[in-house]
């Protein structure tokens, strides 16, 4: 039995010659294809690029720059935040000859992007969410948007829609960006009615469908009637919450088609605009700032169109606040303010405007949020 199946030396040589020939042929073909284009841009996603969430928002940005002249886009999905991303980046660099790389997930930055950036110095690495500092390689950039402002506006819509005065937040992990979103959501709602509280449930992972659904159900069982979330793919939360009759606010991308009646609004990324600007900057021979941030005014984020359940008074306050935020220097955290353990986080007269770097290391939940930052 075993002898019959053993590979003969002759057939092994024959097959491997064929494989070698194919490899030689394809590698001779690839560089020529790449040279015909002006700029090749690589996008790497941690999940599926049509997840109604984080990855979809980036993929929509990639789709937008495909339409520009002289751009070739290469993409890879489901790349874990491990040495896998090194292999993906190396293959994009060596086989697709990319000029500009967008490894979009938070965990790619340190050490993987930093490591490759020192190896390939003539390439540009643009990373989403990382904190670039001057000791990092100069060909690395980090960009991010002030999406907490979007959650603040979500909170205004939620504050008007809530009858139980309890709103709910399904969160993945207690990291600064998530905490800022939770705090902003509650403070937005409290600008409508200061008696509103926000219950938060941490699922512990970015993508855990069953646990997200359980968390949503638990929030609604405790009386929350408007739900939003910060997980990679909000589809499960939105569908579960709307199925139980609660209102929902979206995150990352527009989820209104999932719950047309219950969707109030949503905080969306506007990467199409950001990526178009970045790519055009590179095409014009200029450099993108290493530390690149923006909010509503700069077109980094946008709001989903208001849904049918949003009242006229809610719409008025929403639009007025949006106009104020567009003017810049809007502060969600304004003193005097305490966290939910009673510690003072902002003295009277003190405030943190949206561009304040201190907000990027937030480690507290404000008064009115029911939840804990410790795991």
């Amino acid at each position, binding site marked *: 039995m075993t002898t019959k199946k053993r590979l003969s030396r002759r057939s092994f040589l024959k097959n491997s010659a064929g494989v070698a020939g194919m490899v030689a042929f394809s590698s001779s073909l690839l560089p020529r294809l790449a040279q015909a284009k002006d700029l090749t841009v690589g996008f790497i996603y941690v999940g*599926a690029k049509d997840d109604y969430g984080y990855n979809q928002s980036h993929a929509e940005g990639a789709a937008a720059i495909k339409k520009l002249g002289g751009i070739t886009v290469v993409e890879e999905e489901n790349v874990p935040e491990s040495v896998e991303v090194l292999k993906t980046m190396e293959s994009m660099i060596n086989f697709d000859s990319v000029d500009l790389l967008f490894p979009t997930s938070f965990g790619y930055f340190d050490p993987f992007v930093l490591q490759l950036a020192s190896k390939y110095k003539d390439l540009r690495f643009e990373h989403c969410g990382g904190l670039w500092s001057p000791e990092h390689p100069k060909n690395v950039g980090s960009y991010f948007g002030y999406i907490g402002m979007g959650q603040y506006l979500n909170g205004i819509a939620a504050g008007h829609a809530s009858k139980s005065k309890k709103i709910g937040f399904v969160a993945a992990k207690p990291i600064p960006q998530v905490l800022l979103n939770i705090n902003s959501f509650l403070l937005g709602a409290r600008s409508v009615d200061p008696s509103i509280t926000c219950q938060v*449930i941490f699922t512990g992972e970015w993508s855990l469908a*069953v*646990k997200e*659904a*359980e968390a949503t159900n*638990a929030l609604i*069982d*405790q009386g929350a009637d408007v739900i939003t979330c910060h997980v990679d793919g909000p589809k499960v939360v939105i569908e579960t919450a709307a199925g139980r009759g609660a209102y929902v606010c979206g995150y990352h991308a527009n989820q209104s088609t999932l719950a047309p009646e219950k969707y109030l609004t949503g905080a969306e990324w506007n990467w199409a605009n950001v990526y178009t600007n970045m790519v055009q900057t590179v095409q014009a021979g200029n450099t993108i700032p290493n530390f690149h941030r923006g909010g509503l005014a700069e077109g980094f984020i946008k709001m989903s169109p208001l849904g049918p359940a949003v009242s006229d008074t809610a719409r008025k306050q929403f639009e007025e606040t949006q106009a104020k935020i567009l003017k810049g220097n809007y502060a969600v955290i304004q003193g005097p303010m305490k966290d939910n353990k009673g510690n003072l986080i902002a003295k009277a007269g003190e405030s943190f405007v949206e561009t304040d770097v201190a907000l990027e290391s937030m480690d507290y939940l404000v008064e009115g949020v029911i939840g*804990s930052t410790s795991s």
Partner: protein
Amino acid sequence: MTTDIGLWGVPLAIIGGAIRVSTPFLFVSLGECLTERSGRINLGLEGTLVFGAMSGYATAYLTGSPWLGVLAAAICGFGFGLVHGWICALPRVNDIAVGIALMLFGMGLAFFFGKPFIQPVAPDLPTINLGAWSDIPQIQAALKINVLFIIGIVLAVTMAWMFRNTQLGLTIRVVGDSDAAARAMGLKTNRIRFLSTACGGALAGIGGAYLSLYYPGSWNEGLSSGQGLMAVALVIFARWNPLNCFWAALLFGGAGALGPALQSIGITQGYYLFYAAPYVLTLALLIATSSPSKALTGAPGALSITR
């Protein structure tokens, strides 16, 4: 819309969670129970579950009928079972290794074919409202019971009866307990294991369809968080008894709901610890029910781990 139920939320969430989350565990563990009773271990059921979830969702979306989706998932699961059964029937093949290979293959194939179905919304399976007697919305929501859950209970009872009281059950048990005895009786061991593995695969496929078509009710690549693998372990925990599989599945579902429920009433410290509750519970029960004299009570004698 809701009534304030306070601390009652926790037991209610555990009951509701047990009903909502247990069904995939139940189907996969029943499938694995059948397979292992015939003397094979199919570790590939996680892959079958994921592929079942994808094929069920895709079929339900394309045809508009969730039940056709369940059927498609069962057929695909049957197919995966057939492949496992067929490969393992070859001489000197290790069923555990084949299972792991098929698990990875099933997941990869599901991701590949599932790409176009992440976005669309497929119809959900219908539910039976057992909570209609109550006017508290939380109780109504907790007691919304899916038809597949009921089918799972009926199946568990039927399977327990079949193993004990029918010739078919006896045949499967003999094949699972002793190759030599089965051959002496003139039974075709390979064919019986082949069919048991295939039927077990079909059940795992249905478990997957429950995930994508009811709870949480959409297809994406992170849908299963290892339910298929855990269900295989549940079979050992349930001592190869279908009725115990049902209780074990309920226990896992309920314990999984504990973490979010406790956070929702304001107990927010140590939620990672509460999320580990199902595993801690399993360990505790295994230790409590273990016996120094009889190792692995009820284990089929011809399994590759006990042989």
